[in-house]
């Protein structure tokens, strides 16, 4: 097992440890019992998902600035990882909501804006699927990624205002301090997993590009310079 495999193992061990820590150190919630512990995955997943979107933004800007395809590949890897984490956040939120609110979905500010963001990134990934040429795909993805990321705070604000004008159930935003440490540890562990996914995805993308380059060199097989000179070209 190489370094990469070791780090992967460590990340998962860290996650298991953080989860165990969380379960052990925090008592069942007064109202919700052990259900509250879903927060140990739901909240870190949400944090990591938003971080991924931030990475998409930064790498999109860098791509437009430097035109280095590595930036495009990092952005794409972050978008995929972020989309998965967002979907996970939503599912866990929904599972938490069913026993708590009695419904599978509530138009709560955070859940709703997370759902919108999932769709925004589905659009980004769909665009990548439909744009064939790598250079074009990179350029367009960067443009779309920047605007999509900019909308993150705007969507959140607008949904929050939309909600406050109609009072409904409150979100699990106020947490008992006893949960705090468990949350932080899990936050780091999930972040480590997210980074791991991104890095692996990026490596795969780089390998794909390397395979293309090998074919490229074969295809290009330049003519020697002296023949070109002779033809006065």
């Amino acid at each position, binding site marked *: 097992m190489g370094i990469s495999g070791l780090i992967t193992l460590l990340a998962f061990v860290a996650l298991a440890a953080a989860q165990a820590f969380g379960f052990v150190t925090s008592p069942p919630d007064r109202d919700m019992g052990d259900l509250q512990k879903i927060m140990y995955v739901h909240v870190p997943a949400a944090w990591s998902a938003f971080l991924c979107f931030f990475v998409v933004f930064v790498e999109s800007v860098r791509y437009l600035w430097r035109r280095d395809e590595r930036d495009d590949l990092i952005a794409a890897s972050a978008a995929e990882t972020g989309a998965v984490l967002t979907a996970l956040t939503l599912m866990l939120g929904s599972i938490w909501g069913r026993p708590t609110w009695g419904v599978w979905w509530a138009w709560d500010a955070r859940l709703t804006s997370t759902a919108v963001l999932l769709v925004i990134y589905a659009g980004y990934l769909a665009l990548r699927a439909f744009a*064939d*040429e*790598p*250079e074009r795909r990179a350029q367009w993805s960067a443009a779309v990624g920047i605007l999509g990321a900019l909308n993150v705070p705007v969507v959140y604000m607008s949904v929050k205002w939309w909600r406050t004008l109609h009072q409904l159930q409150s979100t699990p935003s106020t947490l008992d301090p006893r949960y705090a440490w468990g949350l932080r540890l899990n936050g780091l562990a999930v972040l480590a997993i997210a980074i791991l996914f991104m890095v692996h995805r990026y490596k795969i993308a780089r390998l794909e590009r390397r395979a*293309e380059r090998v074919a*490229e060199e074969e*295809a*290009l*097989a*330049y*003519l020697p310079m002296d*023949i*070109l*000179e*002779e*033809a*006065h*070209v």
Partner: protein
Amino acid sequence: MPAASKDGAVRAIKIDEIAQRLGGRWVLRGLSLRVDPGECVAVVGHNGSGKTTLLRVLSTVLRPTRGTGSVFGHDLVQDADGVRAECAMLNHGGGLYGDLTAAENLEFAQRMMGERADAQAIKHALERVGIGAFANTRVRTFSSGMQRRTAVARLYLRDARLLLLDEPYNSLDGDGVSLVDELLASVRSKGGAAVVVLHDLERTNTEFDRVIELAQGRIVAGAARSTIHAA
């Protein structure tokens, strides 16, 4: 290869090892080319050999995947804007707006060049290509030959130093062919240059300084200097 032609003037076109990949396929595979001011170069080759792609790279529509180049000293990537100021293109399809009249199409071109609409110049250009009577007719109603003439009129208005023409003689009658030849002579006399993609070598009266043959994205070695005359 020397950066300037023998008398030290800047080359009209200078590209080195240009390679272009489109949709996973390598359409251009290491092209190097020098064209001097006053030269008209013909490019021939089968469909798919990369002729149109070459024109698109020269006009900066496509950013070269590999390689470098310049047009009248302006780098294709670093100074794309400078290149665009020097080039005018006649592409497949014509690039005209069907629901505008011939005159309106030319007026749009002038305004996009940052100039004021000059009705006199437009009228003159349209008459020069023989469709002065159709100035106020919608381009959509034109035959393809007339559309081509409108596009040529637009090239006269643009007065660019480098002309990139993609199969300009297609669907033109004898008069139309002369018009394109005239256009090429005109740009030559002003010290400009032209790269003309041809399908059919025989339809033109222009003496091309060189004929370059493309095959699978490469210039076929030994493409000789030759002059082509109408059969």
